[in-house]
């Protein structure tokens, strides 16, 4: 299995990391090559491990948005997906501005996480549909 996709998960909640690792590693073509708990870990992993896809928490120490922006500069080819509870549009916009490829709201079933990982690895962008709806609403009726 030389063509396994290399994944990395950075989240300061150990249970979430464990759930994601176990879910993703069940797939024969996925390999979780690194885990971390902070923005600094995320940047180090991006530079050293060169994963294909990274999942970043928004609220981790150092900040997920900061981590995404630094990774985008340091390793432009890494696919970045935010994985968070946060649904504030200001945060979502900041993530998009930092150059993330996807924004997934925590609470999805494992099967969906696997399907979204495949989409992102295939080069697609992905944003939670509820966030898309609210962003569109905001565009339609600016304050």
């Amino acid at each position, binding site marked *: 299995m030389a063509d396994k996709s290399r994944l990395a998960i950075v989240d300061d909640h150990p249970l979430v990391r464990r759930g994601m690792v176990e*879910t993703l590693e069940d797939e024969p073509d996925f390999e979780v090559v690194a885990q971390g708990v902070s923005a600094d870990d995320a940047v180090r992993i991006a530079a050293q491990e060169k994963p294909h896809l990274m999942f970043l928490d928004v609220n981790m120490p150092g900040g997920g948005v900061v981590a995404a922006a630094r990774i985008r500069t340091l390793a432009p080819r890494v696919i970045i997906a935010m994985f968070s509870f946060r649904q504030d549009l200001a945060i979502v916009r900041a993530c998009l501005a930092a150059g993330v490829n996807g924004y997934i709201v925590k609470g999805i079933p494992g099967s969906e996480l696997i399907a979204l990982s495949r989409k992102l690895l295939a080069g697609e962008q992905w944003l939670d549909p509820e966030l898309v709806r609210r962003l569109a609403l905001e565009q339609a009726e600016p304050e």
Partner: protein
Amino acid sequence: MASALVIDNRQAQSPQRRALLIMVAKIAFIIFTVEALIMLMISGFDLEGLLDSTSLTIVATPLIYLWVVRPFANAARTASASLTDQLSETQRLLEQNEKLRTALQQFSENTAQIHERVLEKIGADLHDGPAQLLTYTLLKLNRVFPIVERSGEKKSIDDFKSLNEVLGQTLREVREISTGLSLPELSAASIADAIHLAVRRHQEFTGSKVAVQCENLPENTTLSQKICAYRIVQEGLSNAFKHAQDTAPSVSVRHEAELEISVQDGGCGFDPETVPDKSLGLNGMRARVQALGGKFEIISSVGAGTKVSAYLRVQPTPVDRSV
């Protein structure tokens, strides 16, 4: 001349003494004038009579002063001293009242901040505890599903899907509660920012459109006042959305003698007298405003919409926010 100088010096020493001398002179003049007039009416102009009048005046004036004027003057002086004492006491009580009022306001401020910190802690605990556990559970259920699916039992498969949906809904609710409890972003925000944040979040979550009008907002509101304003707008709009069919909700905030925060809707309205004592929404808003020494008002009647208003007093200078 020497005598005049002595009088002048005494006058200079004491305005009260001067007033007394003038009064004595007036008494003497009145006695003399009255006697002279009586004399003129009875016996015409008579030099001897005039001299008698003068003598009588000289004798009567000190007597009248001692028996009539001086007791009155003393009584007036005593009354004046008493009034001065009362005025000082009133002044002292007013200052004490002001100190008590400031202490009470500070206490309310601190209590409100502690209340917010407790809410924030509950929000953080919900986020770090149940929300993470539910996230893990939802991810892991995926591993069980193929086993259930292989069983071929339709009921088991349906139960599994239903369980998955309920867990997802539970997580969304926990997340919303957690987000609503914590407001760390208000620390550095202005009162206008707090109002607009509450409105924006409401619009984002409900899709409704809210008219906002802010006028002459103060710069020196405390954190508790900003949180209170946020909560009033949040709860008021939530009520308008739930109970007033989201009919033309509007938010108006202005600062004149007090900071007035109002949320209005054009919905079905209600009788404010019928709000149960245990109702958390409106009673919670009232308690929150009263804890900061403010007033809370509900104007509503059946069929005529609802307006809830909070009135907060903004200090002319920022107060110490430490707890």
